[in-house]
């Protein structure tokens, strides 16, 4: 704003604060709910200030979960963590290799592979659920971590990001390394990878969130409760119907489910923003 009108600035701040509050309100409420007992919640209207049963609810959630579910939230968080880390590390690993090959090597089928990988950018898992399910089932990977992770590392966003990063690395660096006697692999490990550390970190943040928040795929793949991810777990907890749901534990679980991705975003905000803006190019 060019003009210097203090009251407009004041108003702007007010609107922003209102915006922040509205965005935060659902979370606040959830937190409040997770600190009361069920009867307190059912007593309409539900309280809007935090209660005193924080420890009780959260420990129940973590150790035993909801009665009908049969699996603890702690276990489900573990599953989610494995899945998220598996997807993140798997994707970064294969993308680095593939991007390196496509940028720095001349080989037959190079363009073909490039377009093949590009093609995967366009089709999210939701449009191929049934046949992918069949493939995973045929490979005997239902209800295990491999089946949970592997199909989701196929898409190419990370490959494209790394490709762009590698293309921006000056040619002379590779030439100097070549004269220094570095083989392609050494060049990749000693020079390229360390140079792209920030991009990898940004990708890590984005992919971790993507992996943790997966819904459709874990829903299909896991039938055994001990393999539920935490988000699926919440759904199962609600499945008993509105009137019987143990809302206080469910809300505690929800808070826990939100925690890792939010912590990652807030603590690595710069990387998160970088990763988001660069993958969408």
């Amino acid at each position: 704003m060019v003009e210097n009108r203090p009251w407009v600035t004041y108003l702007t701040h007010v609107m922003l604060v209102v915006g922040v509050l509205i965005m935060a309100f659902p979370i606040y409420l959830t937190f409040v709910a997770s600190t009361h007992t069920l009867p307190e919640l059912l007593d309409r209207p539900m309280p809007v200030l935090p209660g005193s049963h924080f420890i009780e609810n959260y420990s129940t959630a973590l150790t035993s979960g909801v009665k009908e579910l049969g699996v603890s939230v702690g276990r489900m968080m573990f599953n989610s963590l494995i899945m998220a880390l598996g997807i993140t590390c798997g994707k970064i690993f294969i993308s680095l290799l593939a991007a390196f090959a496509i940028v720095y090597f001349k080989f037959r089928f190079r363009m073909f592979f490039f377009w093949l990988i590009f093609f995967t950018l366009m089709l999210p898992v939701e449009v191929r659920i049934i046949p992918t399910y069949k493939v995973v089932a045929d490979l005997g990977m239902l209800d295990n971590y491999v089946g949970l992770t592997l199909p989701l590392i196929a898409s190419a966003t990370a490959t494209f990001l790394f490709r762009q990063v590698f293309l921006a690395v000056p040619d002379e660096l590779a030439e100097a390394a070549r004269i220094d006697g570095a083989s392609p692999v050494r060049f990749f490990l000693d020079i390229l990878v360390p140079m792209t550390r920030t991009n990898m970190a940004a990708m890590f943040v984005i992919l971790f969130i993507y992996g943790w928040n997966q819904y459709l795929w874990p829903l299909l793949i896991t039938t055994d409760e001990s393999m539920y991810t935490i988000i699926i777990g919440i759904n199962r907890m609600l499945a008993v119907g509105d009137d019987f749901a143990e809302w206080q534990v469910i809300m505690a679980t929800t808070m826990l489910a939100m925690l890792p991705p939010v912590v990652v975003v807030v603590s690595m905000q710069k990387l998160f923003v970088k990763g988001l803006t660069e993958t969408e190019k």
Partner: protein
Amino acid sequence: MEKRVVFGHPVLPYLLVAPQIAVTLIFFIWPASQALFQSVLRQDPFGLRTEFIWFENFIELFTTPAYMDSIKVTVVFSFSVAILALTVALYLAVQADRVIRGGMAYKTLLIWPYAVAPAVAAVLWLFMFSPTLGIITYTLEVLGYDWNHKLNGTEAMMLVVVASSWRQISYNFLFFLAGMFAIPKSLIEASAIDGAGPAKRFWTIVFPLLMPTTFFLLVMNMIYAFFDTFGVIHMISEGGPAGATMIMVYKVYEDGFRALDLGGSSAQSVVLMAIVIALTVVQFRYIERKVEY
């Protein structure tokens, strides 16, 4: 886009691309082609008999009222989400762009909802609107309105739209902010000197320069609404009541996994594939022009 320096190793590149290609072929190309293949077959649930029926599945789809309804629902849903998320985000971004102090703090506070899974966002809003103990439900009751999204289709649609938009606001906010940051301050100052007030400056300069960003976000929001919102629907309404929130991607799941209509579900998958390819192509075409802006 070529590097001047290329290695000419005979075997290594193939080894390097192998993992990605392998995963792509097994979990991507093969299933996608299977979906295509299945969509032109009719198979009974026991898999005993398969008939090659060409485009019958597709014709059947487009003449089934349930599917046409689903298309309508999806269109309404995605446009609502896009419009709601874009306008709120734009407003907040404009406000945030204006403040000099505290800008970073607002940015942090407004972007973290994106970290929340769509499905979890659904739970948050479901909780507030729960007919049993939702606080907003209670407030509406006091005001004389009886909210029950389990029975009322429009209410269900409103709920899923709000739940889906909530986290997209963060995403759009981020990109709008970046887009405005890229507008040279000198342009704003020049127009101020020319006599334009803040509102006029916004509509005649800032907004037109944000068009590429807006367009980009529109496409991204549509893609989000079409595909990433499965969790929202599944958590809140499961496509109901009576198909009021049966968006296309949910229908694929419903028909494929619940009703076990593989042919129909595959045909729907193919339709969705076509849509997403079209959207992506549009986006890439436009991004190319965006660079020249």
